[in-house]
């Protein structure tokens, strides 16, 4: 069958590349974000600040009385701040890459609207990821500024905190979005937070060094992406970065993000081109 077969062939040379199409989708997210940014500020900026206040200063005052040799001799709040940044980046990655992605198919149907245009599923995916990356970076930047303002940063390496935290968030975002797009109902996403996000936050060397864990549990903690992200951020913030360790952390997180990207290009296509 044919629809207007006699019309001149669709011009393929005029079609922009995938990168341009992804940026196009990203810019549309910016237009939409102008409407909703206010409500996102509360949870993404104030939440972590409360954490820092309660854990760093509240709990920290107790910890500091018992000596902080195990923390590398710095006050607890200095020890914990880069970890809270890491948790914030992870959560930004997870929240922005799960419910909005699910919504794109089931609630707002933004994806379904976009797929009827020139955008291909992979463009929709990458465009959304660019926006998610921006959101992670914005949240992280706010927190890094607060850390600096409260004098919790001990090194010039900290200028790399923002890209490090963003990489950490994106490493969680690419596989999460790739998975969320396949879902038919929202419940599994809550499980990710409950059984994924929360244990990671508690046991990845965030609030206490991994060396405090029982020996058999430590390898498990060292294998988690959040530990790599937190260790990276902490090294940059305290200035005791071991370059070879940092390279391993970055490589781990980059690989995770890349695998997610590969996987997502496929799941998006399977979901949006059926």
């Amino acid at each position, binding site marked *: 069958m044919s629809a*207007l077969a006699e019309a001149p062939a669709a011009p393929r040379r005029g079609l922009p590349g995938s990168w341009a199409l992804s940026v196009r989708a990203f810019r549309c997210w910016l237009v939409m974000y102008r409407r909703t940014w206010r409500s996102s500020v509360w949870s993404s900026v104030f939440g972590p600040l409360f954490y820092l206040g309660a854990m760093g200063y509240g709990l920290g005052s107790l910890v500091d009385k018992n000596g902080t040799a195990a923390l590398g001799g710095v006050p607890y709040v200095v020890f914990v701040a880069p970890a809270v940044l890491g948790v914030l980046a992870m959560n930004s990655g997870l929240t922005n890459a799960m419910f909005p992605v699910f919504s794109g198919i089931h609630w707002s149907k933004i994806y379904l609207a976009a797929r009827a*245009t020139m955008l291909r599923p992979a463009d929709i995916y990458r465009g959304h990821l660019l926006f998610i990356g921006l959101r992670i970076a914005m949240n992280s930047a706010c927190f890094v500024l607060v850390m600096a303002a409260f004098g919790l940063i001990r090194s010039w390496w900290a200028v790399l905190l923002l890209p490090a935290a963003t990489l950490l968030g994106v490493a969680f975002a690419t596989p999460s979005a790739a998975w969320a797009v396949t879902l038919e109902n929202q419940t599994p996403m809550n499980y990710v937070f409950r059984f994924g996000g929360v244990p990671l936050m508690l046991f990845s060397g965030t609030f206490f060094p991994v060396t405090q864990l029982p020996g058999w549990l430590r390898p498990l903690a060292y294998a988690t992406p959040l530990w790599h992200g937190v260790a990276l951020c902490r090294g940059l913030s305290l200035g005791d970065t071991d370059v070879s360790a940092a390279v391993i952390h970055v490589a781990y997180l980059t690989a995770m993000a890349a695998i997610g990207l590969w996987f997502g290009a496929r799941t998006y296509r399977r979901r949006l081109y059926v």
Partner: protein
Amino acid sequence: MDGIDFDLIRGEAFGFLGPNGAGKSSTMRMLGCVSPPTQGELIILGGDPVRDGAAIRARLGVVPQEDTLDGELSVRENLLVYGRYFGLPRKLISERTDQLLDFVQLTERAGDQVDPLSGGMKRRLTIARSLINDPDILILDEPTTGLDPQARHVVWDRLFRLKQRGVTLVLTTHYMDEAEQLCDRLVVMDSGKFVAEGTPRELIAQYSTAEVLELRFAPGLMEDAVQKVKDLSPERMEVTADRLLLYAADGDEFLARVHQAGLEPLTELVRRSTLEDVFLHLTGRTLID
């Protein structure tokens, strides 16, 4: 999909009629290049939808069955976002938005948020949005399902004007009046197959009689009446919950025979055949074929 074959002519309105589940929406998705054709050959605007999907979609307008508007954005912003997906410059989008909102009578709501708009307004906005890229073909999947009669007439009116301007329309519907109003040609689908094809007039001539006699009987007398009418051997008969539909070349002549047989219907009506009769004949259950 099975054995579907059709060619679309520029500037016509082509309709797909069929019951729910007949495969109309699947066909629309394939035409919209968001679903791969399962088998066979599909050429849209001279291109292969698998290879040139994005380039073809650039020249299509799509009005999906379910609204995909962004309820949090304003009417105008919805058009802006959509126009940006097509890579149109802001200035051009703004100009077209003015024209399109005027066309669908939403100019006064341009700055309003979309969520609180009525169903009819949202559908008109979706139509305006689908036209932002000045498409060669407009694909509409059940454009008036769920709208009240007034809203439907406004939508029909706008679609008719588009057709007059030379936009090719492809639409699905299960409303016969919609098909009769809008379509130059249509196909009737059932279980993924084409069961009939032609202009509305041709279909009526081919699959129905010139006239239809509608009879209603008092409760309880229906079964008896069905038997007696059967004995008069009508060309075709449909029994609905409260009515008998009798297909005949001459409705008045058949009515006289009904009276002669001693039947006294509560109400009797002779009318011309419509597409609905064709549709029921082709896709519904019939007692006598």
